[in-house]
């Protein structure tokens, strides 16, 4: 890929976020007018506990270049423990993906609270930049052809 | 036999060579090998940080680089001023890869900040107070010391991260192992004004006088320090203090290593205690009655 193509590339980013922390964190980023790139598509779910691994796979199948999964910090879950359950699954899932050679730079996990609008904006900015540098997730697209 | 890197700094190789004699004698007895950094340079204190920030990191950086090159994981810097400058640089290096590169380039030695910098009290802790206690030949029963930490042993606390900045106890613990008593007093961490030797002699004499007076008032028969600058102010300047305030203190000022050495059976001469200005002889006095 040429350099110009690389810079013109705008990644598709899916963010699965919980309703109570990260979604509100994103709201706060808005309230505080903290600018970040427009690539991200936020999918609101009740809790990170709801976020199954196949939603992540599905997103890649649908052409996502990067997937973000974010929810309440440990101890802050609106449902007490959904994020703890999620954390365990992600730990195992990441290892599986690693064994399969799936690029872990394409999946980012975060705890972003309702108060962390700034963190949300910074996080999205950072991973969007990263996604731009990485280019389209060609490897998975090839699988899905 | 344990081995530590050793950074004497200019003071210990200059007018505070009595301190160096004391440290070296003590370490030798405790079977600690001090590997003096090969061709170390001045850490730049106190001028560098006031005049040129980069230099204030490069000079200590060079020495840390030497320590890393020579494979020292721990580096003893008995002068708290040097010690603090080294730690400050170490912390800055650990935090920033860019800085590591910059300083490495400047000092022509790769430096990562991996070396642990320790002060005089810490080396006794590393040796082990149990071990020291077991090796005591002459318990210092007659000593009732006011442990004087001064500024830089515990400060800045976020940087040096040693002991409690306001209620330090580490020297007292060492003294206890030597069979010496220490007193509760108020000026353990007050500044003696050593850095203020330019143009404000009066101030320094004033601060120093307060320190000695308070130690006395709380029943101390000597002061214990772990800093060459504090020693200069409290010992060498004591005459001037007495003159300026019309008092007679006659307060001996020991280095911590002096007391460890004395308890281990070393002579005043070996420890250069005989070269202090105020005659330091309370350790040999008959046991005081509390």
């Amino acid at each position, binding site marked *: 890929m040429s350099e110009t193509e690389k810079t013109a590339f705008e990644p598709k980013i899916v963010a699965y976020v919980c309703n109570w922390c990260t979604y509100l964190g994103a709201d706060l980023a808005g309230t505080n007018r903290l600018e970040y790139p427009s690539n991200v598509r936020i999918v609101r779910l009740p809790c990170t506990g709801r976020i199954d691994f196949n939603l992540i796979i599905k997103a890649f199948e649908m052409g996502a270049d990067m997937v973000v999964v974010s929810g309440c910090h440990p101890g802050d879950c609106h449902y007490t423990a959904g994020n703890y359950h999620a954390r365990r699954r992600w730990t195992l899932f990441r290892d599986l993906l690693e064994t399969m050679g799936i690029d872990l730079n394409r999946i980012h996990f975060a705890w972003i609270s309702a108060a962390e609008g700034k963190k949300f904006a910074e996080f999205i900015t950072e991973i969007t930049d990263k996604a731009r540098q990485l280019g389209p997730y060609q490897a998975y697209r*090839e699988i899905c052809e | 036999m344990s081995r530590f890197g050793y950074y004497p700094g200019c003071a210990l190789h200059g007018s505070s060579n009595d301190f160096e004699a004391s440290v070296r004698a003590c370490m030798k007895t405790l079977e600690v090998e001090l590997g003096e950094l090969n061709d170390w340079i001045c850490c730049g204190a106190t001028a560098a940080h006031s005049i040129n920030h980069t230099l204030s990191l490069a000079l200590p950086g060079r020495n840390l680089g030497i320590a890393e090159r020579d494979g020292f994981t721990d580096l003893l810097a008995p002068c708290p001023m040097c010690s603090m400058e080294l730690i400050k640089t170490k912390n800055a290096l650990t935090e920033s890869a860019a800085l590591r590169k910059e300083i490495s380039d400047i000092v022509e030695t790769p430096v990562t900040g991996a070396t642990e910098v320790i002060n005089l009290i810490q080396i006794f802790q590393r040796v082990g107070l149990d071990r020291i206690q077991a090796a005591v030949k002459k318990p210092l029963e007659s000593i009732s010391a006011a442990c004087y930490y001064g500024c830089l042993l515990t400060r800045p606390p976020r940087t040096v991260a040693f002991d409690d900045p306001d209620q330090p106890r580490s020297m007292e613990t060492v003294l206890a192992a030597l069979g010496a008593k220490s007193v509760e007093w108020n000026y353990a961490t007050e500044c003696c004004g050593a850095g203020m030797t330019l143009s404000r002699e009066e101030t320094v004499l004033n601060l120093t006088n307060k320190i000695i007076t308070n130690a006395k008032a709380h029943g101390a028969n000597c002061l214990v320090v772990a800093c060459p600058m504090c020693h200069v102010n409290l010992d060498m300047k004591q005459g001037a203090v007495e003159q300026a305030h019309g008092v007679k203190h006659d307060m001996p000022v020991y280095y911590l290593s002096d007391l460890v050495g004395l308890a281990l059976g070393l002579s005043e001469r070996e420890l250069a205690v005989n070269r202090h200005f105020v005659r330091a002889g309370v350790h040999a006095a008959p046991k005081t009655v509390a």
Partner: protein
Amino acid sequence: MIEEIRQTCRTLLEAGTVNVVIAYGQSNPDGPVHPIFVTKPDDVEKIVWNKQCFANLTTYLTRKEVKSLGKAAILVKGCDARSLVVLVQESQVERSDVHVIGLACEGVGEPELAGKCRVCEVHMPVGVDVTIGSTEAAAPEGQNRYALVDEFMKKSPEERMAFWKQEFERCVRCYACRGVCPLCYCNQCIVDKNRPVVIDTSATLKGNFAWNITRAFHLAGRCVSCGECTRVCPAGIDLRMLNASLAQSAEKHFNYRAGMDPETPPVIGTYNAEDKENFIR
């Protein structure tokens, strides 16, 4: 040892303790070993026990047709016994409903010992009602259970991806892996779910990746490495690598090994507030 097995089974059937014995049989001495369901005491003579007894018979315990035969006794090797523990944990088998006959096992596979047997530490099955035979066999000290994975992980991610592409290219979606796995007991497999379609059912690379990722992850913290999926795969896909990778992950992060202890809560569906999370921002 075979006589003792047969005798035990005969006694159980004669006494009416069980209605059926799930065991190994062989149509002719050189033929393949297959499962048999012995309901008559005299049929116990059909039971065999040899180096070809790979099958993990516990997979039949959850089958409707087997359940309908009544109370069962089952022959298990050490590894099979572990899958039974998982089945009990997951309420698929009531332990008291099954008479478990453990077989001392020095490993299966001839002439070469199966890979799983070389790192096996349960040559004597645990948690069984009776054990037949004895063995001193044990995994060599310091044997790395996950040597295979470790070796594989030395490849670059791209190489690993290329490897799996090559493997899954061959998958024909026959679901033999699912069929043989004792822990694939769902009434309706997620892959057969069509509203919505979770996994592409066609044997394309996309569908094959999704399917194999899903199956591997559904076995996370559950797979006991009986190796049956790999053995039966007609395309020869090395599925045990994925399972082993997850088993290693569960052991490394959560100090959990599937099927070792029915009292330890499963790794998924439980948590520890102190679980590490160095990958989470």
